[in-house]
């Protein structure tokens, strides 16, 4: 698109709301400069999570970052959280302004 835009990765993580306190510090530790979080509901292998109370709510976290950080985030999720928690992650290429920020 416009020459002002640069390519970065968008890592989206969907997981149980209870994980928030464990996960957010981990993001910074892997080199993410920020995140955006929305409350979510959903369904997956572990059944319906209807948001009726915290124990059955999900959160959806987005991190804009470079390729290196994205790889580290995915690996961290895989080694630390995949076994015990309902975590879904997907990565997509996006174009951003001010690439130095991410």
């Amino acid at each position, binding site marked *: 698109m416009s020459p002002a835009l640069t390519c970065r990765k968008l890592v989206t993580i969907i997981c149980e709301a209870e994980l928030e*306190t464990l996960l957010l510090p981990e993001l910074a530790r892997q080199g993410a400069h920020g995140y955006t979080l929305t409350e979510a509901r959903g369904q997956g292998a572990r059944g319906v999570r209807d*948001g*009726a109370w*915290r*124990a059955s709510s999900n959160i959806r976290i987005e991190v804009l970052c470079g390729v290196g950080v994205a790889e580290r985030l995915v690996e961290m999720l895989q080694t630390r959280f995949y076994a015990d928690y309902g975590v879904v992650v997907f990565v997509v290429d996006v174009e951003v302004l001010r690439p130095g920020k991410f």
Partner: protein
Amino acid sequence: MSFEPVVLFFMLGLLAGVLRSDLKIPGVVYEALSIFLLLAIGLKGGVELARHDVLDLAGPALVVVGVAVLIPLACFSVLRGLAGFPRADAASIAAHYGSVSVVTFAVASSFLASRAVAADGYMTVFLALLELPALLVGVFLARRGQGQVGWRTLLHEVLAGKSIVLLAGGLLIGWLAGPDGIHPLDRVFFDLFKGMLAFFLMEMGLVAAGRLADLRRAGPFLVAFAVGAPVCAGLLGIVTAGLLGFSVGNAVLLATLYASASYIAAPAAMRIAVPEANPALSIGASLGVTFPFNLIAGIPLYYWLAFRLHGVLV
């Protein structure tokens, strides 16, 4: 052995959930109501506490907490030894049953009030004290022989968790401000309490309905456990109360505390500290079986038992 009218609201919620009604109470209303109930219970206890000498409670508190630690230990033995549950699951369920349910306590208080049976406001102090120890025991049981316990994280999770902060904060404010200082707030924190409890129970019914599916996976042993454990723990509470010379009302409350299983502090703490345990089992049992059982049959049963045994024990 009739139950409290507020329990009808729980049944309405349960029914709505089972019928797949579009009645959905937004998650934030659940949050707001639980904050209200915890704070109000704390305040009430604190106001009552201001009328007593706090130091007199230290002895009974030690006994009450000491005996309570037996509950998760016994639960763990049964689940792991008898039924062969995996270590983590047995420990997590044990922690839920060793800890306490604030709403069950509130329904029991309200049950006593409508029968004009006196109970002491300082029982709330035991409510606050009983929350933590069973969680520590649960984590200890889950981790025995393995080094990696995040005790600091766990202690922070529970002690700075909303139920302790609100209960203890309410106790402290009530105690500092005293009956006169709190009086202008009575309209909200005391007069509205029972109506809010009814509303919250309706929500709990909806939430519990969502856990019924988990029960099928849990199997009949866990369902039987979820009825048997509270009865035994309730009995233990009545006996302990008798030995401590508690009034009948206080005995019913202590039995209810012992018999109730946590579903606010425990699920959050276990998810962090024992992540390999399956939360569907512990929450399915505590919220899907034990909570309704206590509301409908347990509290009237502990009431009846407490009156029977009072003469014998004291």
